[in-house]
């Protein structure tokens, strides 16, 4: 049992919006990365700019600035990519939403507030207080442009990446070089405020954040030579739009896949200070007469051989697609209607065929009708690749 860690390759005193954070993992001969042991940790601090001011000042509790309760600190990492031996095995262009969906399938509302799987990642419904900070990070009493003492909150998260979801330890002889790359998002993508609009108008013009002391850590073990291939669970994203009450989402994947999971957010809610950018918003009307959700593979075969017409069945299949835990937020009416909703299918065998998901929503009037209030649909295709 050994410990190892690296700082980002492009080492900087702090990382903020749109920065690239890339880590390279190199091992000593005879060592292996213990499967699923990668963790990113550091300090996070946020500030606001009041209207008419050029100073960045610490946020207050009244500002009610949150990160997504299910995505937590994952919210700040817009894209992710990982590669082994210079071969890219996964790219996820909306990483925080995927991290949020995975948490929704594994933890209840109480779970995200109490489980160490979530709290250390700054998930939870009271992360606004955590975001105000707890201590001054070493050697960073002040930051450029920030007025007053900078108080940060430490975090540690387990990235939802293919490299962290492998079937065995990653030995040095077969994986001499591994890379993880994140692209940080803007503050408006990650942060939102639940304060009254009048309060926001007079107190918050802009938000910013910075990460300090970022590092990727993992545990190592002695490499056991093996010829067995290592399988990585990958995920890739297809983005489409729910713009009519009879919508078809097509899924084409370059690799084998065994599940698809779709989540939605109204276009009017994206990248707005008043809305959680990673909420998996509820789509009404599924249980109306004539409404249904149906999946078709290559035009004829169907993973579920009947149209789904109830939210219960939809939630069950969505939860299966995310390989969730028994206690979760997906199969709960309250949380499902408050940011944990989606459509998904898991297949008994892996497929590589063209899949289409047909969503028919009857009886919706303004502003629920997608043609008046379209939603973006994020389709995550869960597959695997062997190296």
């Amino acid at each position, binding site marked *: 049992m050994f410990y*190892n860690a690296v700082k980002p390759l492009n080492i900087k005193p702090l990382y903020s919006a749109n920065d690239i954070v890339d880590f390279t993992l190199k091992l000593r001969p005879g060592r292996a990365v213990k499967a699923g042991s990668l963790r990113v940790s550091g300090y996070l601090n946020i500030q606001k700019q009041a209207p008419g001011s050029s100073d960045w000042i610490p946020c207050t509790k009244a500002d009610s600035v949150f990160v997504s309760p299910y995505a937590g600190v994952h919210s700040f990492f817009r894209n992710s990519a990982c590669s082994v031996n210079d071969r890219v095995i996964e790219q996820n262009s909306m990483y925080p939403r995927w991290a949020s969906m995975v948490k929704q399938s594994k933890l209840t509302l*109480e779970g995200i507030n109490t489980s160490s799987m979530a709290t250390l990642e700054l998930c*939870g419904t009271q992360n606004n207080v955590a975001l105000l900070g707890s*201590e001054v990070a070493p050697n960073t009493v002040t930051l450029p442009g920030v007025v007053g003492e900078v108080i940060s909150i430490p975090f540690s998260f387990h990235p939802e990446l293919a490299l962290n979801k492998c079937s065995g330890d990653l030995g040095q002889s077969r994986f001499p070089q591994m890379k993880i790359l994140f692209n940080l998002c803007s503050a408006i993508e990650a942060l939102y405020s639940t304060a009254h609009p009048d309060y926001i108008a007079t107190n918050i013009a802009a938000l910013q954040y910075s990460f300090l002391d970022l590092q990727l850590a993992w545990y190592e073990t002695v490499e056991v030579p093996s010829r067995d291939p290592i399988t990585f669970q990958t995920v890739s994203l297809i983005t489409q739009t729910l713009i009519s009450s009879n919508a078809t989402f097509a899924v084409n994947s370059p690799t084998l896949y065994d599940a698809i999971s779709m989540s939605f957010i109204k276009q009017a809610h994206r990248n707005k200070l008043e809305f959680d950018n990673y909420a998996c918003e509820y789509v009404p009307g599924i249980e109306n007469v004539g409404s249904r959700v149906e999946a078709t593979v290559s035009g004829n075969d169907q993973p579920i051989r009947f149209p789904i017409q109830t939210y219960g069945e939809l939630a069950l299949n969505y939860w299966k697609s995310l390989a969730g835990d028994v206690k979760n937020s997906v199969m709960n009416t309250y949380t499902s209607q408050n940011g944990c909703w989606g459509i998904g299918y898991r297949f008994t065998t892996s497929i590589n065929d063209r899949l289409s998901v047909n969503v028919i929503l009857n009886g919706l009037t303004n502003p629920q009708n997608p043609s008046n209030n379209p939603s973006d649909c994020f389709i995550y295709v869960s597959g695997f690749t062997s190296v």
Partner: protein
Amino acid sequence: MDSRTLLLDPASSSAERSYFRIPAGMKFYANKVRLLNFNLLNNDSQPIYFGPRGIYQIVKKISLLSVAGSEIDFLSNMDILAIKMLHLSNSSQYSLARELMQNMCVSVTAPSMSQIELTEAQGKGDGTKIQAYIDITFALGFLRSSTLLDKGYTLVIEWEQDPIVSGIHGGYTFSTFPALAIDECLTGEPADSAPSVMYKTIISDRLYINPTAATDGNINQTQVRLNSFYNQYISNFFYYMDYNCKDNTSRNPYHLARSAPQEELSLLVDGRKILMYKGVDTSARKGAMLHDFSGEFCLPGVAPYYFNVGRTLPLVVDPSGVSGEWGLVNPNTKVIMNGVYSYGCVKLEQFIQIDLAVYYNYLVTGTPTLAEPAYLNTMAEVLRSYDVQTDIVSYVMASPGMVNTM
């Protein structure tokens, strides 16, 4: 798998200790040895509420002896059980742990997307009104490593009589002395016949930290070399700070694991630094390692684990006399759930061939005094072996010539 539960009265019992004898030849399941059928009474007629150690706060030491008198296994630091109890999930904490183990409430309900509250209700779940239950298997690695035992044993429980340690002002008495419950095997399954049993025993230590070694705003550095682990195999190394850095006090009736500002811990095994960079240098990294090596744990948010979450919020005047600090307040113990459950864990999983050195730093705030000493409590999971034939307990040792490599 037929069994019957036997209640064994103590061979002798006093306020200080209870002895139980399990006769040789009686085949019993090692996974279900417990004390029950008793209630606690507070000598001051007050309700009893425990801290993170729960009911184990009244236990000073649990020992399991062979018939010939060898101490096979023991537990003398109940903080390890406090850590284990945290591994139950939120719902189990509410429904099981708080009632059965009586540990301080860490479960919450979330009535809406923006609220959480502790499930502890004022005046309820008082220790004098709950039938007490002490799980012995939970405490002793030897029992957890065994299945079916029949060699005969003596179980000795030493009770904590110091009210400062037990946390029960005025002391306590038992309504009746606890009875030992074991499940006797009634079928023909053979008892464990392995010549030796390997198991982990917690060896705890309390490292003195001079609180005045540094002044306000400076780092207090402590370096301690622990030679007593020579040639022993340590699995996990748990630790926590027994000192309140906010108020600079040592008073800790509930045995809370305090967080400290800018806390750093590094371990050196045989002179080799085993952790990268500055070691365990943030609360989050500390929590992540506890999660990774000890298991997922349940705490209401990060505030109970981190130092000073909500520090920028104004103090609210509380009429009940509790500090108006932000945070969830336990209505019975009045403990504010901020920085009070900060246990750490480092996995070593190796032999100590020379010594184990602990480097511990934290930022001094306020004005500490020598009258209020600080301690770092440590608990090392050491691998031990019991030779059934010779009745000898020994530490598992490295084979000659083995060298730790980095």
